[in-house]
């Protein structure tokens, strides 16, 4: 693997780490299988790229993407709390609607390019380039993601955050203690999808375009990152669990990068998915084997 591939996997891992964090909050903390992900990720991309290509300031465009993501989470939340739709189906409904909504956000075009325009990430990179060169993006994203993890940790350790965790663990007990589980679900979904939309926005800005098909496979990547992270750093303490999400995402992207080099070993380009699956399976089975031997 070359340095560029490595930094590429690291950067992508940090961006998708946000997705993993969002998936962790819904699937693990809130115990809510939220499939909105495949729709909120490209929504973040669509909102920010559309705004940037219309001349809006990149920072505002990025923040708008986060707000849009939060709203999709609220939509799913309302479906399940107010209208009693099953959690899995609520996410699917929102995700399906988003497919068309995203095209609308992009003014009917399935693909918008901003290769020639300044992005939020681009601005920061330009600033840091003289000092850090090739690693500027890694440092920028690393700082951003670390800050987000810290804030998320503070939130989940607050009275409100504890109530949210209780809702996911034992909703009946939470209600008996005066916690509005409906409110918790709405807030949890909003935060999760806001983070995921941010990931989509950063990804699109980094690659210079937004494509409506960008979301396909996001939930799988997010979920694999969470599981991989838990396998690599099993932890009971919340702050380590949060960090494990990012570590899992970076590892996942590194696995893909390694698998891409499989053509050096005579593998076909189409074997990529198989190789990724095998490496992932090994990564999950190995700790178990190790545990059994002891």
């Amino acid at each position, binding site marked *: 693997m070359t340095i560029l*591939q490595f930094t590429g996997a690291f950067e*992508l891992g940090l961006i998708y780490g946000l997705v993993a964090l969002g998936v962790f909050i819904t699937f693990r903390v809130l115990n809510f299988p939220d499939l909105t992900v495949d729709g909120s990720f490209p929504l973040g991309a669509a909102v920010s790229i559309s705004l940037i290509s219309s001349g809006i300031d990149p920072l505002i465009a990025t923040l708008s993407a986060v707000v849009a993501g939060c709203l999709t989470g609220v939509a799913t939340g309302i479906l399940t709390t107010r209208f009693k739709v099953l959690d899995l189906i609520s996410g699917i409904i929102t995700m399906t609607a988003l497919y068309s909504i995203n095209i609308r956000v992009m003014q009917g*075009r*399935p693909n918008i390019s901003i290769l020639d325009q300044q992005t939020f990430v681009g601005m920061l990179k330009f600033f840091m380039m003289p000092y850090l060169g090739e690693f500027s993006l890694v440092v920028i994203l690393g700082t951003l993601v670390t800050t987000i993890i810290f804030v998320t940790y503070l939130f989940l350790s607050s009275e409100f955050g504890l109530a949210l965790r209780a809702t996911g663990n034992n909703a009946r007990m939470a209600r008996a203690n005066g916690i509005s589980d409906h409110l918790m679900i709405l807030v949890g979904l909003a935060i999760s999808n806001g983070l995921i939309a941010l990931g989509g926005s950063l990804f699109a800005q980094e690659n*210079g375009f937004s494509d409506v098909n960008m979301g396909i496979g996001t939930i799988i990547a997010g979920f694999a990152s969470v599981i991989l992270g838990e396998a690599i750093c099993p932890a009971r303490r919340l702050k380590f669990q949060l960090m494990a999400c990012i570590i899992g995402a970076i590892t996942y*992207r590194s696995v893909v990068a390694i698998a*891409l080099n499989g053509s050096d070993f005579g593998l076909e*380009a189409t074997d*990529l998915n198989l190789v990724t699956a095998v490496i992932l399976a090994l990564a999950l089975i190995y700790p178990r084997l190790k545990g059994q031997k002891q």
Partner: protein
Amino acid sequence: MFKSIFLFCAVSLSISQAKFTVAITKFVPHPSLDAIEQGVRDALASSGLEIDIIADSAQANVAIAAQIAKKYVGKKVDLIVPITTPSAQTVYQVAKKSQIPVVFAGVSDPVAAKLIGSQTKKGDGITGVSDVSPIKAQVDLIKTLQPTIKTIGIVYNPSEANSVAVLERFSQEATHQNILIKTFACLSVSDLMMIIKSIPGKVDALYLPNDNTVISGLDVILKNLKDLPIYAADPESVARGCLGCVALGQYEIGFKAGQLAISVLKGTSPGSLEVIEATDAKTLINPSVAKRLNILIPEKLSFKLTGE
């Protein structure tokens, strides 16, 4: 400074060795994209240069396309040939900072994708072959075979960039020739059946652009709309039962891109090469379908027949 020293070494090395590494990547394995890739490979093979080829498919996943781009630039290949718009965009975003030339193929609107300037038809470190469908010729064909035609229906997936671009131009051309257009949007193959049911009686003919969703459901369309003249944008579909098409050969597009690549490898700067708009389109008609639909093929129309 370090970069220029390195570049100098690389250039001198490449001159002395004359062995090149070319990377080809397509967004997804697909018959027309595979044909383009084959064209590129054959052109490179016939160049007389010693070329190593590495190839990857992004499995329809943008994140993987981005990682593929990083892989190539990290390996410092001599040239990258991305096929399709998302692959071209991800590759160019990384390659433009590293001086690795890019020759794209299978991109229908490189201007909209911000790969090249709209006036100059040239790009910075990038050139290629755009395969805009020969829309005018297609509309002309329909008008020729059905002179009294009033309305043409178009089935497409609004999430495929190529289809949307084709639709816009087709509508413009049709309006120009006083033909009405009716669109049928179809987001996935499973929706196709329902959409097909709403078509009869509303249109005099149907046009199917080179759209992944629509083409994968072609058999269903043909089976359920037997009495409607259906025009396609690629030869395989005509062989399968469409009435006719005016199509660019995908292989030829790839071959042209390969030839552009060779010029670049031999030293021409890609920024000086104008993007080629593939134009040698051929008309293809399926005679048994024409007979079944009672459509007379005019004597003076130059076309090829599909083999039965």
